[in-house]
């Protein structure tokens, strides 16, 4: 449904929430010049990525010396950036270890928190009973009064009878543990919605409001919603830690709470490729936890119900609802919204399928979906243009961070592993007899080798977070877990840059992605 253009020069705060721009999913939701503008902004990430790649190729051909200078500068930038980020990673590693070892019950002992209710939404589609059961089982074991918890198992009508049966089995087995237990069934084919997690959890949140919060007189202010992926296994003090963060934040309705996603549920069963890619995602989130101004919500996250209710829950017409909800809040509150990095883990599934090839395919698709988060760039920039109440400095900082982030994802590994050699290949005979031409590959290689030394740290961190080794695993398993990091140059290219470029190219040409549910397979 196309939204009409709103002829107001200044929209701000909750006014923006009420404007038709707030829930834009894609350019075709708008009309006239707004549509053109939004479409142009959708093209921006792809244009920048391809512009960089094609620009480097052209420069390598016509001005190879300048291309070589650029590549040397870029290699050094990459090395120093890695070093800079690894400081953040190391600090967050220490912080997570500290937080996991902390007695959060004691931390809460002097705080009144009995009024708080944790509403946990677990959306599922066709995942197995084992997957759903493991997550619910973990909720029964967390150190929190389960009677202060409301569990919403959010199923999809389109998933059929099998999903319904799983939901009922779960209800029979676990409902009595919790203060409230609700199964919601998101109707299929609702107009204006995209089938996916966003539409499902929005429906579930509203259903929970009507069936749990309102009938029981539970304050929206005192309800903390945790929107989990269905494979999310909460660590034992997650809700205590979340409660502490909620209570110690000056205004808990102006923030979202972001745990660190570990992919430990099946880490001992997943192939090395999957482990490396999953851990890389974890490490990236750990780095972002130390840079909260760059942090947006990702995957499983928590937020106050009041905030959610005010903006109408998650967007239902797009893929990246987990990060979009943050930008919804950000625009609705004129930039006065942030993410609290909890530095406390939740555990999820690493990609695992019945065959190695299928696993690799799933990893690619999952990362393409995550990279599709670039759809937030037009939303943010368009919102910044329309919402005049956000300070210009904030707009510039956020715009740069977001654009640079997606540009880096899609181009940097390609530039590092391919473009470094281009001037030598395309530069012509005169360039090829220059000392610069001979030194370029050596410099690129050496800077990359130094850069890769950081992998030692990542290997150590990865092993430190591993769950106990299953007895059937050989005693050398941990050695393999350390050696797997040599796959990094391959994985950041094949499962980082390429799906990133794929997603941005689709956005560039208006070939919009739908929501793809990552299959959860257990051995």
């Amino acid at each position: 449904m196309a939204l009409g253009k709103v002829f107001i020069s200044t929209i701000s705060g909750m006014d923006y929430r009420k404007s038709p721009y707030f829930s834009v999913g894609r350019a075709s939701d708008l009309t006239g010049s707004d549509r053109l503008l939004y479409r142009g902004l959708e093209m921006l990430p792809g244009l920048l990525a391809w512009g960089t790649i094609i620009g480097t190729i052209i420069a390598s051909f016509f001005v190879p010396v300048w291309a070589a200078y650029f590549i040397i500068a870029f290699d050094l930038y990459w090395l120093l950036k890695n070093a800079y980020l690894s400081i953040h990673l190391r600090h967050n590693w220490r912080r997570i270890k500290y937080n996991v070892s902390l007695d959060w019950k004691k931390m809460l002992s002097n705080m009144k928190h009995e009024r708080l209710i944790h509403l946990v939404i677990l959306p599922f589609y066709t995942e197995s009973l084992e997957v759903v059961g493991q997550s619910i089982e973990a909720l029964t074991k967390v150190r929190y009064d389960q009677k202060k918890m409301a569990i919403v198992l959010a199923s999809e009508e389109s998933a059929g009878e099998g999903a319904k049966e799983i939901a009922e089995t779960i209800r029979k087995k676990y409902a009595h543990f919790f203060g409230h237990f609700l199964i919601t069934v998101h109707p299929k084919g609702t107009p204006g919605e995209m089938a996916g997690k966003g539409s499902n959890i929005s429906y579930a949140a509203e259903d929970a409001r009507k069936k749990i919060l309102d009938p029981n007189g539970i304050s929206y202010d005192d309800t903390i919603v945790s929107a989990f992926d269905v494979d999310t296994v909460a660590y034992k003090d997650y809700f205590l830690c979340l409660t502490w963060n909620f209570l110690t934040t000056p205004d808990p309705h102006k923030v979202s709470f972001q745990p660190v996603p570990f992919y430990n549920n099946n880490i001992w069963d997943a192939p090395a490729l999957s482990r490396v890619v999953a851990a890389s995602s974890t490490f990236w989130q750990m780095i972002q936890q130390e840079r909260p101004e760059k942090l947006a919500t990702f995957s499983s996250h928590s937020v106050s119900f009041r905030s959610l209710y005010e903006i109408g829950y998650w967007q239902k017409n797009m893929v990246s609802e987990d990060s979009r909800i943050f930008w919804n809040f950000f625009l609705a509150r004129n930039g006065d919204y942030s993410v609290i990095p909890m530095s406390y883990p939740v555990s999820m599934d690493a990609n695992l399928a019945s065959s190695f090839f299928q696993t690799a395919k799933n990893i690619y698709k999952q990362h393409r979906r995550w990279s599709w988060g670039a759809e937030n760039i037009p939303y943010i920039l368009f919102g910044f243009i329309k919402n005049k109440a956000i300070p210009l400095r904030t707009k510039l900082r956020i715009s740069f961070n977001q654009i640079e982030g997606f540009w880096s994802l899609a181009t940097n590994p390609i530039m590092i592993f391919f473009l470094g050699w281009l001037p030598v290949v395309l530069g012509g005979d005169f360039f090829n007899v220059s000392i610069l031409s001979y030194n370029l590959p050596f410099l690129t290689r050496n800077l990359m080798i130094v850069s890769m030394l950081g992998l030692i740290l990542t290997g150590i961190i990865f092993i430190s977070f591993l769950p106990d080794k299953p007895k059937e695993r050989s005693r050398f398993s941990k050695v393999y877990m350390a050696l797997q990091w040599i796959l990094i140059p391959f994985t950041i290219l094949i499962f980082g840059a390429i799906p990133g470029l794929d997603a941005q190219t689709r956005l560039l040409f208006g070939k919009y992605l739908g929501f793809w549910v990552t299959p959860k397979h257990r051995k």
Partner: protein
Amino acid sequence: MKPLSIRRRRVYLSFFSLIFIISIPLLILYATGYRIGDALNIVRTGGLYVSVPYSGAQVFIGETIMKETSIFQKNIFVQNLKPGSYDVRVLKDGLQAWSKRLMVFPQTVTEGYAFLFPLKLVLVEIPEFFMDGTEKIATSTMVSKKNFLRNPEYRTALLSFATTSTASTSEDVLKIKRKLSLENRGGTLYAQWKGGPDSAPHYFCVNQVCKDEIMIKTKSKVRKFDFFPGRDDLVIVALSDGLYVTEIDDRSQQNIQLLVAVPMLDFRVQSDETLLIKEDKKLYTLSI
């Protein structure tokens, strides 16, 4: 435990930014050949690149052995060389030596492509006839010819000489390989580059100044010639006293190496690895 403070992060960021700002010009200067000289001044250096087709060969610059080539690394790149001339030698036991005086220019890599042929190459005769059976015999045998079968390999080889001889006038004078031509002008060979300077083989250019013709000097008149298979810088020449391989590269004295010391022979390139040699009616193969 608190997150990294903004202040500390700014310090780290400033530190790495400073390293970046300082390192970039230094790296670029290094990559383009600038070095600190003996007098602590900035000097521009160049490099040498020598390609060697064999492993186990020793590469000398002046009297200093720079490297022994291996299966994995047959080429040598030496930088930090002051501009000037350098004597490069490549030696390997059992092979003829290759040496060249190469000029090194600032910020440029001077390339040299060595070739080293065995001191002794063996001609393998292609017999005209087979004995009835599989045993090969020399044509000089006293056994009656009716017991022999004509060797088809000999016939084919002979044909390759006959075929070209029909066009001998032009073929013996001019041979063209892509944009590189070889012309025999009264017994002296000239190599000409017909393309642009951007794509000229390295030996046509010195410090980015290119010429379009090189004379190949030999001790006697060139009777027959052809490109050496797989190389654009080598030519096989039949002189009055034998068959040689010479390089076109005339940046210093051209290396010429003997293949076969048999006078007045003719030859054809059969494949990338084999020459056909004809001496009167006898035919041979020569593995190169």
